[in-house]
């Protein structure tokens, strides 16, 4: 499990507005890649093109190529719905389904895609919650509403929900920015464990977090508001934080930015 992502010359648009320009990068399978950069430089926008979630927004479209191993995500005839089953996503604010219990949240993706076998589902609930380091905390209240959990637990529930559909890649858009430090640590531990199975791409505003969890770091920037964002450089995380090759990167990580 865990596939390689290959992006070539990707431009992303909202209608006529070009939000991201000319991004090429390779993400190795079963690694953690962090996206850092100032607000509005297109990190979320670019991340969402990796599972075609940007198409949910009216006018959202891309030019360029995104390969998942040797599959072109944007080839004609590729169903974006199928892409999202292979490339899962975790959002900034924990968003469990409020009408569903913890158990139903975990298996929502399977259920809504037609899996009915109770044995399979029960097994998947435990497996996914174990995988999200949440099982021990919720195993006695699987039928309680997911919204009753703490923020950090909700976010791990969302991760359990995402991995229950057995994706190859997991995208995370600032998954800890709404969480307290202890919950953040729990998620970071979890990311370390998940990368044995999944290719993980995480957007973060927290530089220490990028340094702690990621193997590679990509720095995005934009020249001015209204201009498209660019990928400035991408390298081993050690390298980016200790010895970046571009001045803009150095300015940003040393806080001499803007």
């Amino acid at each position, binding site marked *: 499990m865990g596939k390689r992502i290959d992006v070539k010359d990707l431009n992303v648009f909202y209608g006529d507005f070009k939000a991201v320009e000319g991004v090429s990068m390779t993400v190795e399978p079963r690694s953690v890649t962090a996206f850092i950069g100032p607000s509005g430089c297109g990190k979320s926008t670019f991340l969402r093109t990796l599972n075609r979630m940007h198409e949910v927004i009216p006018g959202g479209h891309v030019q360029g190529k995104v390969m998942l191993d040797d599959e072109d995500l944007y080839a004609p005839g590729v169903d974006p719905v199928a892409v*999202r089953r*292979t490339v899962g996503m975790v959002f900034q604010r924990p968003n469990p*389904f*409020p009408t569903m219990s913890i158990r139903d949240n975990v298996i929502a993706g399977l259920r809504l895609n037609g899996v009915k076998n109770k044995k399979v589902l029960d097994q998947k609930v435990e497996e996914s919650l174990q995988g999200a380091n949440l099982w021990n905390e919720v195993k006695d209240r699987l039928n309680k509403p997911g919204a009753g959990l703490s923020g950090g637990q909700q976010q791990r529930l969302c991760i359990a929900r995402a991995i229950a559909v057995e994706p190859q890649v997991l995208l995370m858009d600032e998954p800890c920015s709404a969480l307290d430090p202890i919950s953040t640590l729990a998620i970071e531990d979890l990311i370390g464990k998940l990368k044995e199975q999944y290719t993980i791409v995480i957007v973060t505003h927290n530089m220490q977090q990028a340094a702690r969890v990621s193997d590679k770091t990509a720095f995005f920037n934009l020249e001015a508001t209204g201009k498209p964002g660019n990928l400035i450089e991408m390298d081993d995380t050690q390298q980016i934080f200790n010895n970046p090759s571009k001045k803009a990167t150095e300015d940003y990580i040393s806080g001499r930015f803007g």
Partner: protein
Amino acid sequence: MSLDVKDIPASEAGDLGGIDHGKSGIRVLKNNIATVLIWAAFLIALIPLVWILWTVLSKGLSTILTVTWWQKDQSGVGAPGFDTNVRGARHAIIGTLEIAAATSVIAIPIAVMTAIYLVEYGRGKLARGVSFMVDILSGVPSIVAGLFIYAVWVTFFGWKLNAFCSSLALVLLMVPVVCRSTEEMLKLVPNELREASYALGVPKWKTIVKVVLPTSFSGIVTGSLLGFARVAGETAPLLILAQYTQFLNYNLFSGNMAALPTLINVNVPNMAGDQVSADRVWGAACTLILLVLVINLLGRLIGRLTRVKS
């Protein structure tokens, strides 16, 4: 340079950013005036409401507190002045409920689907057109809705009027009400939930059916019941379309059927000289108010009980 507060005369202390009691006094005064005005407006608005309720209850309560009122229809009713029996309103109560129920069965699916289209799918010209039509529909006077159905049913097709015609006219009035309230409820569903579902590889229509609708279910039910209550009390189309009868009739599609508004309408001409007619009028009015009140409360209760906490 350091200033010690004790050294400054009191009059200057205010200028240095201390608490300025003069201005705050004016603000408190304004606040009090506004409070008094708002309470006065509230009480003035309350006067007609209390007056109506008092009139209807004082004149009609004794009638509706009898068992006959709920059990019997008006069969055997005699000429005004010679009939000393108030008799019952069961035929009219059943008629009103059946007509409103048939209206709801048709109107709610149309309204909810229109709202889903407008909120979840609608873009561009078609959506703006549909939204505009809903606006127009909600502005149509109820008597015009009745006339329209009459024109189609009787003048155009040459069919015989029945109670279902009233339902059809009321559908025109109910659809915009339920559509607008459902739209509001759908808009309240956070986009994050839709995105969470899409990100699991769930198609859009399934996301709407399994995530969006359940999340807004309680609001949609409340809105629908409020729509039901509104058409149950609606009168004008019935004046044109409903054929009053003194007998209980369960069949919407054949024969005449009474409703509470038409029961009132039939008895009003005699109420000045005949206490029994007057009792029927106020009894029916009282029943109608009670009905609408109960359905409103029911709607709110269901809304409260099924509300999703997030």
